[in-house]
């Protein structure tokens, strides 16, 4: 039997082995117990929309705690957006009405931008999209700034507690313990246990995931410079492209691939780069995807096109209703059909790619990758591709950019893995956290306590657009409604909604 050392204010193996913790367990370890009705874990945009909704519903700041390792809610998002080549002045792929700082969705980003920049075209654009104008999408900076303003208005920082959440466990007799490690030096003990009746988990992506062959290359050759994930910092690659002619292989055909291609072609057009781009497709849609006139998506030259990552009605119309009724694999398949890999049909992107194909600096190749190895001269990579007609070809490139997306297993996140092992949580058909229609994590109820989750970790549930601004707001509203049913807050009705909007519009502190 191994000896368990109990340090004051820290966990022990013995404690971690127990799925349900009692107050005495915590006290015996010298860990202070805090009590709060509601605790949100994450502190990013998911926690922000949740807490914002509850503040609007009238929940005071002393009833809620946000545990996070970031200072402002948009921090992680901005980091990922910057890496994927969307700095503050560039536009996101998001609807004007998906206004993160405003649960009412009005006025939208387009109206505000038109007003602030004296640009009435933006009003015309949002009123006529996508018929006479392309979809309006907000600049990243506008989103961050407005989130910052709203965070200040709802007194976000008074609810925020900096630290790293270690685990969420059921408490004997009901509720949960959220065990977290505060910033070093900020507390006398290493850990603090927050006892909460309602816990909300919004921890975002567990991490970036590389394509298998690229991950193998990286670990085999310890080369993280030439094989790049588009969500990781990779400015060095663009800098090298400006210094000398380079060849780049791009993998993936979603929105991030579009953005990375734009960056490279912009550098060719404006800064004299002589980059050659080889775009490698595993699937190559061309023409309609789907054979029903009422259910088909346009695709052209390898790209599937739709304005947002799902059809618009998936957020609040016919397709949302359809998905609400589906279960299991059928639900998963429907999410794939309406989502999957796709990008936005922006004219400037299409012009660049058509010009690239014509002039030869952008080429397309179809096939599956057999192998990736370093070049013999040590200055690049060689990708061996098996084409669909059975041929084998090699692609020499200075860089390979994996733009296939941010997909990692939820087990890679310590808190989520712990919920699977000890909290009663399960996985949905997509391998993410299994949640109810109102985003309660199935199987995790603890007496009167309830545990909810929102964001990308719930993809595969009854709502497709969970990983989007509007999806976060939708989840927040659903959870708010459920919390109101449990007596935690009042349900926001038309009158409260309107009076709170009026406060919001005047930026009045609540």
């Amino acid at each position, binding site marked *: 039997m191994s000896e368990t050392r109990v340090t004051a204010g820290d966990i022990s193996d013995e404690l971690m082995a127990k799925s349900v913790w009692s107050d005495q367990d915590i006290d015996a370890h010298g860990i202070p117990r805090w009590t709060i009705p509601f605790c949100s874990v994450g502190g990013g945009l998911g926690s922000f929309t949740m807490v914002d909704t509850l503040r609007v519903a009238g929940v005071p700041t002393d009833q809620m705690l946000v545990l996070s390792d970031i200072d402002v809610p948009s921090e992680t998002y901005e980091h990922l957006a910057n890496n994927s080549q969307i700095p503050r002045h560039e536009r996101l792929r998001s609807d004007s*009405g998906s206004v993160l700082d405003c*649960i*009412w*969705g*009005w*006025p*939208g980003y387009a*109206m505000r931008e038109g007003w602030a920049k004296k640009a009435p075209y933006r009003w015309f654009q*949002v*009123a*006529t*999209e*996508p*018929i*006479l104008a392309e979809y309006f999408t907000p600049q990243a900076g506008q989103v961050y700034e407005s989130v910052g303003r709203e965070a200040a208005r709802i007194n976000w920082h008074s609810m925020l507690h900096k630290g790293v959440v270690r685990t969420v466990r059921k408490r004997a007799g009901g509720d949960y313990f959220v065990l977290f490690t505060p910033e070093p030096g900020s507390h006398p003990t290493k850990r603090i246990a927050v006892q909460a009746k309602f816990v909300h988990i919004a921890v975002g992506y567990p991490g970036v995931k590389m394509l298998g062959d690229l991950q193998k290359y990286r670990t085999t050759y310890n080369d993280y410079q030439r094989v790049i994930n588009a969500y990781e910092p990779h400015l060095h690659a663009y800098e090298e492209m400006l210094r000398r002619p380079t060849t780049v292989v791009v993998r993936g055909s979603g929105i991030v691939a579009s953005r990375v291609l734009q960056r490279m072609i912009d550098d060719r057009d404006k800064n004299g780069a002589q980059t050659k781009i080889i775009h490698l497709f595993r699937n190559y849609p061309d023409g309609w995807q789907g054979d029903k*006139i*009422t*259910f*088909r*998506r*346009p695709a052209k030259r390898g790209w599937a096109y*739709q*304005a947002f990552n799902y*059809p*618009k*009605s998936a*957020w*609040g*119309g*016919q*397709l*949302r*209703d359809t998905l609400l009724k589906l279960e299991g694999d059928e639900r998963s398949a429907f999410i794939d059909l309406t989502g999957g890999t796709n990008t936005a049909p922006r004219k400037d992107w299409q012009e660049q790619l058509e010009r690239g194909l014509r002039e030869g600096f952008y080429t397309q190749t179809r096939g599956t990758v057999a192998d990736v190895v370093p070049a013999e001269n040590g200055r690049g990579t060689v990708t061996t591709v098996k084409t669909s007609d059975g041929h084998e070809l090699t692609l020499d490139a200075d860089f390979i950019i994996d733009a296939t997306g941010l997909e990692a297993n939820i087990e890679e996140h310590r808190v989520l893995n712990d919920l699977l092992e000890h909290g009663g949580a399960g996985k949905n058909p997509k391998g993410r956290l299994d949640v109810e229609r109102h985003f309660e994590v199935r199987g995790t109820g603890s007496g009167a306590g309830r545990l909810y989750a929102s964001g990308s970790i719930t993809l595969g549930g009854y709502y497709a657009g969970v990983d989007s601004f509007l999806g976060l707001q*939708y989840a927040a*509203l659903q959870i708010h409604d459920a919390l109101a049913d449990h007596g935690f807050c009042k349900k*926001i009705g*038309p*009158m409260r*909604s*309107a009076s709170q*909007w009026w406060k919001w519009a005047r930026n009045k502190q609540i």
Partner: protein
Amino acid sequence: MTPTLNGRIQSRIALILLVGVPVTLILGLILPRPTDATTLGDMYEVFFTALAIVLVVGIVWEFIYHALQQLRWEKDWPTLFGLITGIPEGIVAYILLDQGVFRDLGDIPLSTFLQMFIIVWIVIWLVANGPFQIFFIRWRYRGGRFV
């Protein structure tokens, strides 16, 4: 917008009652009357009959719009469509009104009808595309349904 068929019908009823009726009440007071003999009662009789036509016949229109929406991958109804559908709806409403299909109100000057119809239509369109959500935060997620 991303309406469902049920949501379309419910939204039409709600918008006409909550927005169309008050706007029409104001318009009856301020719009020029066609003749000196026209009373406020005459104005309201015509205007509210027109509004009732937009409400009742509109339910038929919603079925047509819903069918057309099925041809769109996004299953959405772009903002602009909400505005320009006012043209066919206005024409049909005027014909029904002028022909006295529901109620015989005699000759109705086109200009009087147009002033009322266009203003009511645009105000409803504007309210539906934003300010409505100030009161009804769940409306946009439910495809326009209230219940």
